């Protein structure tokens, strides 16, 4: 009967000020995190005709549109790589980031029935929203591999850095998402802001164009947009563009970690009001 050797002791008191995440507690609830992600994955493409193909169609069609308008018509430079693969390599992490961000921002509100009826560390909800998106990422990535083979583009040794760039996308998406989802509980305006925000961010990120269009030091400063680091990192790791984006990536990583930490603190501060306000 007693799962815990020493009786679990819980304190009930008003929490004040800024608190960090309780990692020990989060670890205790790891199975719930797993089940919520699993639920999101299982449910996502229910009652659709083409199911998980949606995960591929989104970046693929964007790539086609970009190729026609930016690649063919505007003759956008692409660091000497075929434009379709140049843009698709960027669109795979971008789509993951953008969808992850929208889902995370809405995650608390769409799970309000759980929040009002049961206790668990609330941060599990946005984290599971992001985790469940990684399945879409993997599917879109498989298409990328197929395209690379088709175009005869092979990665260099730098490919070992790929997981790091993916992690950077996760951290950025979660960091911004934590801010947004906590605000969304108070004011639903956030829900209507996010699509604009994501659209603007798309054009502020070197997806349709290479960051090499900019000269130093502006190119490095570009890294303040963490997704610039992610996208350039993906290209460098997979396509072997001859310009390693070291500085950009450093700036991006620093900014995105800052966003995540501040987002986590903000989330924790707002957390106590979720069940009352939502």
């Amino acid at each position, binding site marked *: *009967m*007693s*799962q*815990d050797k020493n*009786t*679990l*002791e*819980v*304190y*009930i*008191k*008003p*929490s004040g000020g*800024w608190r960090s995440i309780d990692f020990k507690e989060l670890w205790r609830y790891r*199975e*719930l995190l*797993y*089940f*919520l992600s*699993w*639920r999101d994955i*299982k*449910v996502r493409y*229910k*009652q659709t005709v083409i199911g998980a193909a949606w995960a591929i169609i989104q970046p693929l069609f964007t790539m086609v549109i970009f190729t026609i308008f930016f690649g063919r018509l505007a003759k956008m430079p692409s660091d000497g790589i075929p434009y379709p693969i140049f843009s698709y390599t960027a669109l795979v992490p971008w789509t993951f980031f953008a969808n992850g961000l929208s889902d995370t921002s809405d995650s608390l509100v769409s799970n309000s*029935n*759980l*929040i*009002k*009826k*049961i*206790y*668990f560390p609330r941060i599990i909800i946005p984290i599971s929203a992001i985790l469940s998106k990684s399945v879409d990422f993997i599917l879109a990535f498989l298409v990328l591999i197929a395209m690379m083979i088709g175009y005869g583009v092979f990665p260099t040794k730098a490919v070992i850095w790929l997981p790091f760039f993916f992690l950077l996308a996760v951290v950025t998406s979660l960091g911004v998402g934590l801010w947004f989802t906590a*605000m969304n509980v*108070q*004011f639903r305006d956030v829900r209507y802001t996010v699509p604009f925000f994501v659209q603007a961010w798309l054009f502020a990120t070197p997806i349709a164009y290479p960051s090499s269009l900019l000269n130093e030091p502006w190119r490095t400063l570009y890294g303040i947009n963490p997704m610039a680091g992610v996208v350039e990192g993906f290209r460098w790791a997979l396509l072997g563009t001859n310009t390693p984006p070291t500085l950009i990536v450093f700036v991006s990583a620093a900014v995105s970690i800052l966003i995540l930490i501040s987002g986590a603190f*903000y989330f924790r*501060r*707002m*957390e*106590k*009001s979720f*069940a*009352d*306000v939502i």
Partner: protein
Amino acid sequence: MSKIAIKLENISKQYRIGSLQARYRTLRDTLTDAVKSPFRKAARLLRGEAYGAADLTQTIWALHNVCLEIKHGEAVGIIGRNGAGKTTLLKILSRITEPTSGYGRIYGRVGSLLEVGTGFHPELTGRDNIYLNGAILGMKKAEISRKFDEIVNFSGVEDFIDTPIKHYSSGMYMRLAFAVAAHLEPEILLVDEVLAVGDASFQKKCLNKMSDVASQGRTVVLVSHNMEAILGLCSRAIWLNSGRKEEDGPSQDIVKKYLSSYVERGAWRIPIAERTDRGGTGLIRFVNFRLQDEKGNSLDFVSTGETVDFIFSYIGREEKLSNVTTWFWIRDNFGRELLYFGSRATGQDFEAISGRGELICRIPKFPLPPGKYTIDLKADVNNVRGDRMNDVAIFEVAPGDFFKTGRPVKGIGLFLCDHSWRFNGNVK
């Protein structure tokens, strides 16, 4: 043995419920406010003012300095009228919400059931939902797998376990939901009114399962309006009144005190004409209630088995009222609706009556045993609700000679009815 499971000290909870409206506002005030207020709200939001952001200035105290101590193995019922803070207390114990002040400690693994089927997803199958709901309630995956067959058996939906639950009937849904909840084995179980849903046999099943839990030496805290459930399950009861702890003690005593206060402090103490807690358009308003016997003598109480007139005086807003329907319910101490009387049911609607008068309902052989009862009353004018009031009046029923035999009626039941006996010796 008597280790403490829950200890609360001076727990208070304040809710913000709305903004106070300034009484005089010029157009200029309104316009400047419309421009400034979004910025003010956004600034507060960004500063992380969790509660201040939405400009909610009006507050209520849902709980006020509540202290309590519950020992391991105790089964405690929490009672009180609506809005007394029962659910808030449970939400604080289960950590869904934080108290505004005060502190507490809980020793042991807590399982809270504020509803059954929390997190059920309609697109997932019964099997998937058992795992999901189990995890949400705090069970480990291995634990759910171990109990899986037991849960499915208990729910009785074996044949549909791989069907998405959106295709379930509401009965199947509830059974599955409760089956998962019933297999939760926390050291401290917090339950809110989940027994109020479902049909009678389902409620009984829930009650049995709960008393199992209580008898296994686990700590149970139950919030309910169902006094029988409280008396059946809990040895101790806590009575909350407007967010404060009113009484705490053996459930028999507390329930009795609570019910008699329900009678003594009820809304019926206010004269009917002055009551404001009523609904309807006001086209008709009840202003008085009295009892009378068949000879026209007014009565202070009803005797079981006697003929009695229930007389409701009203004032209409207009000189003439047409198509008036009225009905009332008699409820017992537990709030159960026992009897229904309606002019529509008897086909005696009042098609044209004057703007003042009395509506009289005669009940021959009053069927309720001695006790105290309350009345809820409604009236429609032209199919639109004209007046509606709960706890209009309380009246006492005294022992009477229902069967006209001069013999006292023994035995406890809710009703009496005419009946007769005969003998048949012609049996092979």
